[in-house]
């Protein structure tokens, strides 16, 4: 594991309107890591992801990506720096074809090259079959693969993955977890994962932050992740 820090937040407060959801949050992610963020519903996990990509404004504190403070940048500029965001609920462009969705993903890097497209299709062969189909007609699992492929095509250094297992059949969840691990091995891409599915967290994450009420309240190592009792307590299931 390399030592360079890819992403860090310090005292991050962010949210909508008057009351911040994140209340002074510190995390640190090293290059090449897969780090999970867990916690009960409503503790601010998705808000964290949105504020990292810039869809929720930071009120206070810093977000550093690579060696660049990005908390003042708008979302599209952060994306152009190399952050790929796969949102909760996937948010594929429903009336664009699969191919067009991939093309939009590649726009920040200019045009999608043949090689990049083939690489993505190598990981997600189903997308080739559905290439000219409207994304809105895909199943949930296929949409999730498209959403990941869509950020992958632009070669991001960091992928923010928000609840990828939501509403998806267990076998596809396992596929996605496997592919993400493979990707991480192949390309060294850093991943921040918000997830509630314990299987998926264990399959993917090397480390894990536990959030409560807008703050990080604990950190689990890989060994900690294996401890079922602790996990269930933190997820409050």
């Amino acid at each position, binding site marked *: 594991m390399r030592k360079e820090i890819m992403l860090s937040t310090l005292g991050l407060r962010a949210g909508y309107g008057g009351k911040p959801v994140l209340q002074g949050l510190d995390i640190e992610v090293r290059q090449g890591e897969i780090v999970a963020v867990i916690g009960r519903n409503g503790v601010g996990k998705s808000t964290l992801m949105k504020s990292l*990509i*810039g*869809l929720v404004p930071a009120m206070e504190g810093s977000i550093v990506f690579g060696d660049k403070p990005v908390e003042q940048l*708008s*979302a*599209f500029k952060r*994306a*152009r720096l190399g952050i790929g*965001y796969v*949102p909760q609920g996937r*948010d*594929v*462009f*429903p*009336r*664009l074809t699969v191919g*067009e*969705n991939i*093309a*939009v*993903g590649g*726009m*920040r*890097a200019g*045009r999608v090259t043949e090689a990049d497209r083939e690489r993505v299709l190598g990981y997600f062969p189903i997308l080739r079959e559905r290439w000219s189909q409207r994304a809105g007609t895909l199943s949930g699992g296929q949409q999730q693969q498209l959403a990941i492929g*869509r*950020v992958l095509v*632009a070669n991001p250094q960091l992928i923010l993955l928000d609840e990828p297992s939501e509403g998806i059949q267990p076998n596809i969840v396992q596929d996605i977890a496997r592919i993400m691990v493979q990707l991480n091995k192949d390309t060294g891409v850093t991943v921040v994962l918000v997830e509630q599915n314990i299987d998926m967290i264990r399959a993917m994450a090397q480390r894990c932050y536990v959030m409560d009420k807008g703050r990080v309240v604990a950190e689990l190592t890989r060994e900690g992740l294996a401890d079922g009792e602790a996990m269930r307590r933190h997820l409050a299931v």
Partner: protein
Amino acid sequence: MDVGTLAFSALYQFGDAFAFLVLSACGLAVIFGMMGVINLAHGEFIMCGAYVTVSAAHAGVPLPLAILIGALVSALVGAVVEILIIRHLYDRPLDTIVATWGLSLIFTQGTLIVLGSTMTGVGTPFGSFTVGDYSYSLYRLVLCGMAVLVIIGLYALFNWTRFGVMARATIQVPHMAAALGIDTRLVYSLTFALGAGLAGLAGGLYAPTMTLVPTMGTTFIMEAFVTVVVGGADVFLGTAPAAAVLAVVKATMTSWYGQLAGQIGLLMAVIIVIRVLPRGISGFLLRERA
């Protein structure tokens, strides 16, 4: 009169109405479809295009080029308006209507003050031709062709160009488009400018056929509104079919009872359509969720 000339006459009336509806509405539809903004200054962008076209023509510029200049100037004004005003109001659609209405007042009255109550126009080019006992204006056929060209052009722009795909992505899921590196503000500015430019094009195209007065925009806007409301948010699935349906209504009513009846027919059509298909024709075709 034989069946052939009768059919031609009906087709000509339909084509004329269709062209007018498409050209009046497409700029409004692009802006509404993309941003959910109803631009009440739409008529004034049309007026702007007409005035610029005629001024350029008076200055010796050939008419086709003059029309193009008219459209470009309108687009430019549109971009400025977007940056100064519209941009700040995206989350307040009703206020956007109110603000663009303020603009409409300013433009209309401003034009009246600066350029006076009327402007000498240019004659309708190309002359006319006869079929059977009636004579028809050739320029109307050109307008008809232009309407079809505009639809095809917009289709190509939104489906085959980088900007088009970006723009469609931005309408569908704006926050996600931003998160994928698209400068959505720029896309909105360009789209508004495109809508304004299309309005200017309509103005330029119709300038040779009508008297230029500062309030000429009102001639277009009711038709434009009705087409957009009936069509719904999608330019291709909505505006074009809506224009076709409404053109039949308008041409029929107009040829039977005169122009006013045509407009009343349109209004009845819109009230009925809105009652049956609240999201317009394109909403029905797409059967969007919720």
